């Protein structure tokens, strides 16, 4: 009996609380719908992500169901106010660095081709210096004028024809 009396005492505040909770839920979902990130905002982040299954297909265009769920995950996190970096980090934490469109260690990925290219360029220029050196000695006698060199036969003949034309 006592219990029931006690309950009765609490009934009103409890009902009020419940009503408040329900209305809060409504407001929240309404708010959430208003603030729901657009597809474009989601795709902007998804563009730079790759799911581990559909390799070489960026997340923003991947048609599979799993990738659709990932995009919804991005949307949720955006709605929670997370930044682009935080969202990407979330996926990296769970699925590894392969979800990113570029290796995290940029230095390693760019350094090797850059060095290889510079080495090639160096070899080529060293080659040029080697080839041209004996020539520079020979041409101590001034033959600087371009006309002194044997011109490309085809161009020479064409120039002649053009001169005649004028």
């Amino acid at each position, binding site marked *: 009996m006592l219990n029931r009396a006690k309950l009765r005492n609490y009934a009103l505040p409890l009902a009020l609380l419940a009503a408040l909770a329900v209305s809060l839920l409504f407001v929240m979902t309404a708010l959430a719908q208003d603030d729901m990130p*657009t*597809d*474009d905002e989601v*795709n902007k982040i998804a563009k*730079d992500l*790759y799911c*581990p299954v*559909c*390799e*070489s*297909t*960026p997340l923003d*265009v991947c*048609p599979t169901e799993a990738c659709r769920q990932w995009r919804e995950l991005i949307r949720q996190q955006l709605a929670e106010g997370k930044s682009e970096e935080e969202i990407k980090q979330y996926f990296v934490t769970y699925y*590894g*660095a*392969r*979800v*990113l*469109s*570029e*290796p*995290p260690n940029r230095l*390693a*990925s*760019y350094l*090797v*081709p*850059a060095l*290889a*290219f510079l080495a*090639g*360029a160096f070899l*080529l220029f060293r*080659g*040029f210096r080697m*080839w*041209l050196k*004996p*020539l520079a000695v020979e041409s101590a006698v001034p033959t600087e004028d*371009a006309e002194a*060199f*044997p*011109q*490309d*036969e*085809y*161009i*020479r*003949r*064409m*120039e*002649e*024809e*053009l001169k*005649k*034309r004028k």
Partner: protein
Amino acid sequence: MIADFGYGVLVVAFLTALYSVYAAVYGELKKNPPLVESARRAMLLTWPLLTLAAGMLIYLLVNDHYEVQFVYEVTSRSMPLYLKVTAWWGGQAGSLLFWSWLMAAFTSLVTLRKWDRDREFLPWVIAVGGVTMAFFIGMNVFFENPFAKLYQTFNGNIAAYTIQPANSILFTPSDGRGLNPLLRHPGMIIHPPMLYLGFVSFVIPYAFAMAALITGRTDDRWIRITRRWTLWAWLFLSAGLVLGGRWAYDVLGWGGYWGWDPVEIAAFMPWLTGTAFLHSVMIQEKRGLFKYWNMLLIVLTYDLVIFGTFLTRSGVLSSVHSFAQSAIGPAFFAFIGITLITSAGLILYRWDMLKSETKMTSMLSREALFLFNNLLFMGILVICFWGVIYPLISELFTGQKVTVGPPFYERATSPLFAALLLLMGIAPLSAWGHSTLKTLGRAIWKPAVGAGIITAILAFTYTQNVIALVGFFLIALVILVTLYEYGRGALARQRSQGENIFLAFWNLTGRNRRRYGGYIIHISMMLMAIGILGIELFQVETQGTIAIGDSLELSGYTIKYKEVASWDNPGAGVNYTRAVVEVYDANGNLLGNLHPRKDFYFDTQQPMTIPGQLASLKDEVYVLLIDWEPINQESTTFKIFVNPLVNWLWLGSLLFFVGVLIAAWPERDAERVTVRTGKRAHQASAAD
């Protein structure tokens, strides 16, 4: 029965290829011409044999023999006849057979040519072609038998076997799994044959290069013989790449044509070395320089072709293209290693013979600029190669899997591509042997001023994006320089021959097809560059969910959703969902109706997203149907791209083929013509 016979024919073809290698090498070493002739005939026999095997495979495909594993995997009853035939190259085993078949056709063509003038090359060309072919037929015979049948063993397991295992019964599924719907597109039907044609035809110049090294005839004879082969190979490979791009654009539904997918890069790498080779052989022909470099380039191209096939076929990288995976990787890897080491060894062995005949005399001469061109192509190659193998290296050494995606390639290669454009602008003006800043400056200032004016106009009317303006300046420069050179040649001819200007253009091109075909190719590349620049820098996209009657706006276009319908086509085994949208421009004028589609294939349970495209030279509106509600039709999701200038890319590729055809079209007895014109060169007119 047919399947067993087909496999038997494959084995015979394999043995024939091996015999031709043996007979060619042994016959040549023992100076036994009849044996070499026998090798030639064996080589000629491989093509009919492989045609027979392919015919039987097609018979099985067309007649729904699903007890054959390959047929079961790539066809289904609902597929139309032409798709059942082209499913031949829709899977691993079949496409390897297709490779061998094309290869056999090319080596047969080579052995049919008149060999009076360079008989010493013949045995070695047969040997190299035979080794390559035996390798590929061997793949079919030992690892990937397209004729393997499904058997159910006593414990209930079903697997494919070449020879029926004991205590098993033949297992015949009632229907096949069907071809991947992505491969049912017309673009995908032509794309692989083109790519493969490009791949196999690069084997021919390689075979001649090796023959030249082995016989010691390292002059430019091998280059002159294979010049046209190389151009055709390049044409096919380029066509394969372009068609692949178009297919991706029309079918994959990501609004682009090139995703820097490892397998795309696999086909792009031999193209890079092949293009460098096409340019650098001219240095050897004109000036006798860098013979070892040309050898190296053709070896690289050959091995990149094999490497490309390896990447696509072995499943070492799983990507959109790797529809099939198998255990042939190690064999490919070994073959690449062996051919690379043997070729490099031969080059070292003949190093003394490969010395240059003359000296480089100027850093601005045509040959020097070609070397810069080669440096840039090799730079792009290194970036591509590194990007493809970096994930493998990373996984191997650190255990971390990584993705190397478009941002890496775009950032790393774009400066090199820009430098290539600049070179394309300068090189046609420089002379063989010697050029100075003064002579170049005198030639280039007019086109440069013209390009500057065009860029200024674009800056006022089209874009203020600096990268785009630099790109447009370079493109304008190349086009103007090329037209300037072309025009000067035509004017000279008009003067000397008294022809009208159009006839002069026509005859000029005809008389020096390689030079002017090359110029047309340069211009076409620039048109393609306009498209690439447009889509790379200015592409915009939006995605939204709307109801019928609502619209989405993007970049001045309004896309209005009219209706959607869905229906089955039971005969073809497809469900189609098609939306109708109207496209309006900024002034509210109706530009047209688009029909973006989603096709769902029942047999493979795969969807396909077909865009609606509204094309113009300025923009392309590209609409995708992403998602739709079957019941209320109230919310349908569309993705819209506006791809500025992209159609210049396709336009450029058409002109590209015209250019290559002009350069590569066979002349009547080309070699005799060369000799004759060589004799009278001193008295002939320039524009000839």
